[in-house]
């Protein structure tokens, strides 16, 4: 039905797909599994015409096809349900379904026949929705049904589903799988992108495993098991063991009590009743599949979430932080290495020198002239050069804009800046994402050194290897809840992986 041959795709420095070959047989449910960033979605977005591949071929029904836009893909019978739904919220279900493929003439929409076609389809596949309801009033599960109907309405023979179960409750997942099986019975082909191994085993006929932009395995589902798939997904060539002694943990620096954080207009709870503590001189790791509330948790702790979106308590050094903003938290000794260095961590158009003072720019010794208003250029230069030297930022030129640095050097600059304030609590997210191996080792050593100096560190990482080797205690987060705590010295990757994906 669909075949990708030698597909390669590069985004800037990142090789998202490296000679990817995927073969999907007609009438099957085909799972594509891999960790975040493994290149699953990129490959499928290429098949749907959202991206164009740098090289390689796409074959549909055995013929090479040139898919330049979703329009071309739709014409070939390919439909895709994206992880973030592609729905116009202010419009009705029927309007969303027919958009781009409207029945009736150019001068008159035939909403009646649209509604009857939709009703027919929803009976056939048991996808109950009300065609006249505005999409913004629908639950997430219902919105997904609209997306499926949208593809079916366009006579899709192949449906690509990107992380379809991420937004569903366990009960809804069961219903959803029943729908997929019905589709297979009707002769449709389904590709499901996921990282939940239990689901792969429950629903798929065949599996393609991806890691780091490459295909690393093609299997029949009946011949494999969760442990094998997990090993293929997370297996890394380089195993960096971090040299560290046992922690000398002091009293609690941070206590989080029953913290919940809501996000978005719909107000879903991204963090749901989380409690834990981080003591001085220890690294507490949080492992989990991305998007399970880690981002919101760290932003809440850093003071970047409006108090009205939070419940529960954040206690730091015995003080309640809930109502305090990011600036005061920094003054109290909290440093933060954010997960997204371009969005949060850096002012890309600013020089390294200017970036090196973000967060302390308003007080002495930086703003130290004329009543602490004027910035002291020489103090800024000194600070920037200290950081550049101590953290080996290259090229070592404080006058360059941050944009000119490689990802790894940008990260070193941020880490250097945050270390420079001698934090009592360090919040770290994905410290080595997109960083080359030499720098990874360096960053890891620095984290341990800081711990040994008595700093409390909370570490979030999607790299299992990283959190297990760095952490003194490891919490696993699943759907906004702490699914369990393990001793990283004794727990196996499989054990952790199952907690991450199943939540128990």
């Amino acid at each position, binding site marked *: 039905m669909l075949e990708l041959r030698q597909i390669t795709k590069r985004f800037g420095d990142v090789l998202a797909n490296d000679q990817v070959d995927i073969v999907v047989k007609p009438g099957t449910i085909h799972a594509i599994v891999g960790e975040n960033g493994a290149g699953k979605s990129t490959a499928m977005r290429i098949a749907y015409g959202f991206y164009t591949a740098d090289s390689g071929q796409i074959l549909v029904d055995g013929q090479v096809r040139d898919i330049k836009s979703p329009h071309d893909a739709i014409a070939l019978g390919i439909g895709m349900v994206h992880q973030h739904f592609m729905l116009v919220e202010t419009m009705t279900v029927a309007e969303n379904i027919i958009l781009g493929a409207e029945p009736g003439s150019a001068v008159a929409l035939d909403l009646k026949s649209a509604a009857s076609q939709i009703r027919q389809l929803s009976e056939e596949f048991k996808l109950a929705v009300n065609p006249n309801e505005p999409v913004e009033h629908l639950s997430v599960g219902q919105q997904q049904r609209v997306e499926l109907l949208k593809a079916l309405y366009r006579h899709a023979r192949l449906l690509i589903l990107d992380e379809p179960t991420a937004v569903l409750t366990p009960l809804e997942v069961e219903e959803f799988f029943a729908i997929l099986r019905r589709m297979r019975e009707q002769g449709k082909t389904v590709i499901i992108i996921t990282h939940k191994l239990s689901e792969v085993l429950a629903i798929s006929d065949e599996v393609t495993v991806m890691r780091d932009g490459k295909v690393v395995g093609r299997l029949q589902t009946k011949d494999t098991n969760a442990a094998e798939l997990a090993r293929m997904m997370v297996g890394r060539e380089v195993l960096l063991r971090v040299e560290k002694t046992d922690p000398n943990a002091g009293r609690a620096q941070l206590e989080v009590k029953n913290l919940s954080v809501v996000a978005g207009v719909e107000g879903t709870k991204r963090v749901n009743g989380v409690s834990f503590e981080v003591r001085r001189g220890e690294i507490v790791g949080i492992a989990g599949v991305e998007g399970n509330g880690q981002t919101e948790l760290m932003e809440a702790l*850093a*003071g*970047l979430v409006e108090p009205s979106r939070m419940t529960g308590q954040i206690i730091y050094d015995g003080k309640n932080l809930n109502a305090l*903003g*990011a*600036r*005061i*938290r*920094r003054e109290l000794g909290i440093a*933060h290495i*954010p997960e997204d260095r371009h*969005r*949060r*961590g*850096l*002012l*890309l*158009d*600013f020089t390294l020198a*200017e970036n090196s*003072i*973000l*967060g302390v*720019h*308003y007080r002495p010794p*930086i*703003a130290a002239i004329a009543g*602490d*208003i*004027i*910035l002291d*250029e020489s103090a800024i230069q000194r600070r920037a050069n200290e950081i550049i030297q101590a953290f080996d930022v290259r090229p070592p030129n404080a006058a360059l804009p941050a944009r000119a640095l490689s990802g790894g050097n940008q990260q070193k600059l941020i880490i250097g800046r945050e270390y420079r304030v001698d934090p009592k609590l360090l919040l770290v997210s994905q410290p080595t994402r997109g960083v080359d191996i030499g720098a990874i080792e360096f960053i890891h050593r620095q984290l341990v050194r800081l711990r040994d100096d008595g700093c409390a560190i909370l570490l979030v990482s999607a790299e299992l290897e990283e959190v297990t080797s760095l952490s003194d205690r490891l919490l696993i987060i699943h759907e906004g809840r702490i699914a369990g705590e393990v001793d990283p010295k004794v727990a196996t990757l499989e054990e952790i992986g199952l907690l991450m994906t199943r939540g128990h």
Partner: protein
Amino acid sequence: MPKFARDLLFPLIAVVAAFIVGGILILLIGDNPITAYRLLIGSALSWPDGIGYTLFHATPLIFTGLAVLVGFRCGLFNIGAEGQLYIAAFATAWVGITLANRSAWILIPLCCLAAILVGAIWGAIPGILKARFGSHEVINTIMLNFIAIYLISYLTQYHYRDAGDPILQTSVIGAGAHIPRLGAFVPGFPERIPLNVAFILALLCCFLVYVFLWRTKWGYEIRATGSNPTAAEYGGISIRKQIVLAMAVSGALAGMVGIHEVLGYRYRYYDGFSDNYGFTGIAVALLGRNHPVGVILAALLFAVLQHGGIYVDGFSEHVTKDIVQVLQGIIILFVAAESFFKWSLGRFGFRRLRT
């Protein structure tokens, strides 16, 4: 290529391209572009009148260019400099009339303060509306332009006009509020040319704006907000405060046109005095690459055109002074297409403002 050369190159290309397009238009209506351009530019180079008047015309444009620049640096589009300078000019005149008998030592500072303060307040309004309600500063500044103009028109017509005066203007300000013309102390420069101390003030403001934006903690916070609001927030900077502050500073700078106009030139508030200064300020800031030095250069260019426009009107067959506005429009169009890459102005969209 060094950075400053690159910064000069693109605006230069935009200007040359605009002159070429303008030249084609002049040809189409049957005039000689070379003759027209010689009139347009050549007349500005004569001493003392050409140069004196060019600097005179440049003064308000430097103020409004700086005003737009400060907004831009915070990621805001202040399209309301026009309203801000009108209302500030009126306030200047109001102080000058109300306290007419005071000495210059009191009157001039108070008048200047009125211009700056009222401009800042009028500028801060859309800033507050955006910080508090997320409503778009572009729309609100446009609306406030009209409100300012009607408000002053009312005040002038009903309360501050000399009885029987057919022209919509206030009575004159006290003599103590006049600021001197440069001719009064520059040897060899005739005093009939209205170039006044406000020009020096404008240059001083360029320097102050530079210091403010690039050397103070406040400027750092404003630029950080404009460059990447989410990173600024991460660094403990309140985006809402920066929005209000930047708009207030922007309004204050626009308001200083009132000092030039009322204290240095007409000595009264004259309805409709602004020759699109506020909108030309957008062109000045964009062409000047949002840098104070660039603003001076761009303001001079537009001042040359404005001054030369009068000569074009008088001495060429078909071309009128409207060529000035045509050139301005084309220059901004050319700069706009490029500025997208440099400035990612997408942040002016509605969505990102609704935090």
